[in-house]
């Protein structure tokens, strides 16, 4: 009897654990681990310098607004400044949550990372990568660099950042001012070794740029742009994948040889955008999690944009709202308000909704989060953080989706 009872308990336990493992909210779904992997929040593309000011942790989210870092509890979606002092008014630099003028934040393995500029008398004197404990009680510098990195991420315990070193000497002419060497460096966040050069953009020199740095699994993805070294008439535009184990660099291309770039994670696969068109629509490709074996996946109208959150794919008409010429083939493109269609990984339409006329300028979708959309923006009242509850999918049917405020500044 006793043995039977124990067996039943064991079976039940295993079953429950098994159920938990399928939940995308878990830290690891077999591919992507949001606690340790690059957690780049995608933002609306129309903002040229869209900020990654939201990041996910095991129990909720962190969001940056008005130079203060907020923690948002996952279960209640309420926000609080990340300061453990009940006697603090959170309105000056003595507050634990104060981080100053910072663009991006990343959560990784118990810490929040951000970059601040070092400088005295308003003169730039380098950048400091900082890490803050999960409760905001401690901050320390991880790395100082004399450069201003163009892009940076934290992935699997390492900091990766792109740097542009301008080549200037007495012989530099006016046509040479945009000559620069671009590098990607890595540095372990536990400071266990030195800065390591991961990649040098040998083939470009003039107008050289490495951008859109992101990482999935064992690969670093980035965009390379510039004029060819030693032949500045030839433009180089490449989307590259760097394998972090063996340092091999390959181009991410479609089966027809066209560049595909900007990977997003969707249920075990990566979604890339391309410059290709099919029937007048922009093509998107899917690959396996290692960025291999690209296949056509979905196409969108001019003015539409795609973003993924790991479980769902969203087709957003934000660009179309601001374009003069619309392709008048689809209702959402011609709508005068922000309209989003929701699909699952098999491209079955799950729902569609409108954000009304009062829509955020930037919105941050986290790579693996099936719970909420987080919006950080600014309205007449100041900075705000609000969210939409994804559990309502299936019931919206094109209506205006009601938002909830996690924070509104006064």
């Amino acid at each position: 009897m006793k043995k039977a009872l124990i067996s039943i308990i064991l079976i039940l336990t295993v079953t429950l654990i098994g159920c938990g493992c399928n939940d995308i909210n878990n830290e690891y779904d077999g591919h992507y681990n949001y606690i340790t992997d690059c957690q780049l929040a995608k933002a609306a593309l129309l903002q040229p310098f869209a900020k990654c000011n939201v990041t996910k942790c095991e129990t909720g989210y962190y969001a940056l607004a008005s130079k203060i870092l907020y923690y948002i509890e996952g279960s209640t979606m309420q926000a609080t400044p990340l300061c453990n002092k009940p006697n603090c008014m959170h309105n000056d630099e003595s507050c634990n949550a104060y981080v100053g003028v910072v663009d991006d934040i990343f959560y990784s393995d118990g810490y929040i990372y951000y970059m601040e500029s070092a400088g005295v008398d308003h003169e730039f004197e380098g950048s400091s990568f900082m890490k803050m404990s999960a409760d905001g009680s401690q901050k320390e510098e991880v790395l100082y660099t004399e450069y201003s990195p163009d892009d940076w991420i934290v992935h699997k315990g390492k900091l990766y950042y792109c740097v542009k070193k301008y080549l200037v000497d007495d012989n530099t002419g006016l046509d040479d001012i945009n000559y620069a060497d671009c590098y990607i460096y890595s540095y372990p966040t536990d400071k266990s070794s030195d800065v390591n050069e991961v990649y040098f953009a040998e083939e470009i020199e003039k107008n050289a740029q490495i951008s859109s740095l992101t990482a999935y699994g064992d690969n670093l993805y980035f965009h390379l742009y510039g004029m060819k070294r030693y032949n500045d008439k030839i433009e180089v535009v490449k989307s590259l994948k760097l394998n972090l184990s063996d340092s091999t660099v390959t181009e991410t291309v479609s089966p027809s040889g066209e560049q595909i770039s900007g990977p997003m994670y969707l249920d075990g696969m990566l979604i890339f955008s391309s410059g290709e068109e099919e029937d007048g629509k922009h093509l998107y490709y899917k690959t396996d999690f290692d960025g291999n074996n690209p296949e056509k996946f979905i196409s969108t109208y001019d003015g539409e944009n795609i973003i993924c959150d790991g479980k769902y794919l969203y087709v957003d008409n934000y660009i179309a709202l601001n374009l003069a010429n619309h392709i008048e083939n689809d209702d959402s493109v011609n709508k005068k308000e922000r309209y989003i269609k929701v699909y699952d990984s098999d491209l079955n339409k799950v729902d569609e909704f409108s954000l009304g006329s009062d829509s955020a300028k930037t919105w941050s979708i986290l790579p693996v989060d099936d719970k909420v959309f987080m919006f950080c923006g600014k309205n007449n009242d100041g900075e705000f953080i609000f969210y939409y509850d994804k559990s309502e999918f299936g019931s919206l049917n094109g209506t205006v989706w009601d938002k909830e405020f996690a924070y509104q500044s006064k």
Partner: protein
Amino acid sequence: MRLLSSEFRKLFSNRLFIICFALFFIVNAVGFYFLTSSNEMYKYELSLSNSYNEKLAEYLKMDKNRAISKLSNLKEAYQIASNIQSESSEIADTSYVNAIIEQYRTENPKAYEMAEEIIEDGFNSDDMYVNELLCKKFSYIDEYKKFISEMQSRKDSQLKFSVFSRPNTFAYNNIEKTPQDFAHLNDVEITPGYDLGIVLTTSFQLTDYLLLILVLLVCVTLFSLERDNGLTVLIKSTSKGRQHTAFSKLAVTLLIVAGMTLFFFMSILSVGQLVFGLGDLNRSIQSVPEFMNCTIKCSVLGYLVIWLVQKMLTFCAIALVSALLFILIKSTNLTYIVIAILFSAEFCLYNFVAPTSPLNHLKYINLFYYLNSNELIGNYLNLDFFTKPVNTLSLYFVFLLLCIIVILPLCVVFFSVQKQFSEKGLFSNLSERIRRKVHIFSGSASIFKGECFKHYVSSKVLLVIAFVAVFGIFALNDNINIVYQNGEDVAYATYLNRLEGELTPDKEKFIDKEQKYFDELNEEKISIESSTTITEDEKTTQLTAINNILDTRGRGFERVMLQYETIKATGEKLGITPCFVNYTVGSRLMTDSHREWILFSLFIVILVFALSGVFAYEHKHRMSYLICSAKNGKGKLVVTKFLVALLTYSIVYTLIYLPYMINFIATFGTDIFSNPLAFLENFQNLESTITISQAIILEALVHIALSMTAGAFILFLSNILKNKITAMVVSTSVTLIPCMVVYFSNDLRIFSLFMENRLWIMILIIIMSIILSTLFALLTYRNFIGKQA
């Protein structure tokens, strides 16, 4: 009792101590008066204090809510009146102005009515400012009540978040503890008042630095002088044991330090009361918004008493620590170095460690934090000790207890058991044998060689020079290249590579050509944007290429054009040919305020250490009888001493200042030096054609003059005081305290004199310095010549 009185007599018979005490007391009081009343903001508030106090008294008689309501309405009324006044004067269109007035009338009729009355009576911006101040003070009443009453609910709300609700973490424990520590303040009454006097008086820092020097002076007099004068053998031969002597010395030290602290800070309070007024001393300290986070329930008067006592206790603790160091370390040089390192380290840790750094314990268990009484007593803060929140005030009491329980007995024990004579070092026999083999003594040495030996070898100045040499090597090899952050900076630098120097017709043609190029580029951009013949993609490609150029080279050229206009105007004003100077490189050379301060302060510290023993050496080693018996008189000896000091001065100056200059020239070349300084950014007010190289030389002359004065003064002290450590302490106070004042005020830099066209001040400084240096040198000479050994 006799021991006590003799220790008191020792101290008060030391003329140096009396002079320093009197001097520092005057500097303290006068410094407080001038530094606070010269501040424009404080001066303005002070000028309004009568009006403020009158209105405050009126509003205090009213019901609080009525007062707040009236003040808010008045605030709005003043704002409306001010807007109407400025719009009426600036905007010619009367119908527009009338429309604005009508808008105010309809939106807030009550405030508008009051505004009309204000305009009728004559709008006064001072009254508006006073009203705003009062508004802030009165609304603070409710703010504070809310702050205290909602503490518990804030705690509950914070604990709902998982990052804070994990038990046995510092965050959780701190959130739990804080409301408990504020709970007793629930019934505190907030009474608005005049707060400027209290805040300025309690936050004035110069007093702390002056008292630190005096504390060191007391310790030198009581614990070091006797050892240097060879009297330790005498005073330690006591029938009842040395503990009595030790206790007497310590008791006198503590009593004197406590007395001095009281005296100095009472003088500040008195000046504060006379100049600003301290307001109603019976209201709660929390009525002053700056002390909102103070958890001590007391009146303003009570806070001032606690503040005074805390200062006294802190200085007594510092005195105990210093006394222990003086007792333990027999070498004068080493004592000075250890104390300098200790205080510098404490200063740096307090000022530069971030509040949430893992090292923040070193920031808050720190002498300078304890000296900052407003932070310690007036601002509640807990530190993480193995997840337990411990209040910094509690840690302070632990520190005091440690001083009493540990340091005090250690002082007594070490004073009692220490040997009277220095033992030979571990390697002294070996080094002596080596020296004998290397150097064969062949008759008498020249005075110069003898002085050099005393100075560089015996006084270990050679080690100091070696340290400065290492510093110089680092400065020489430091990478000072400019790291360009964007194409615009590169473009500007590239333009300046081409244009730097005098503006020639060729350069003007080049500028015109570039301007034409960008005009055409902008026209092309407009035509592409409006074109209907090319595809969108082609448009995007072409526009991207143009924008790339405009964002980099274009912006760089805009900066060049701005500079071009400025230098033409400056050239016209001065009647010289305009010159292009690279602003980035120039500002690095001429306006680096930190480098200027660091190098000069380091130079002064080295001089203090190196020169304090020049005239005190023989007295320390009891050779003064020997050297003062000179066949040809003492003149040659004192001149030789000056020469040796000058040699050290020159070596140290060269090692500190030259490496950076060499590094700069190696990195950026010499082209910049021949350009007039007036063409550099921020120097447009200069009405002289002085070149950058001449400016550097002039700046160097000022540094040399000031440091020579400091050096002559140090030599003078060394001769008068006949004791190296005393000379070090006094010269540190006279030279380094002004350096500290300058450190906190970025405007007080020599290059600022160029910016403000006050070259005459530099000339004056040089002349005064020459006069003072000569005076000190003459006094030293005459004193040395005339003295009996």
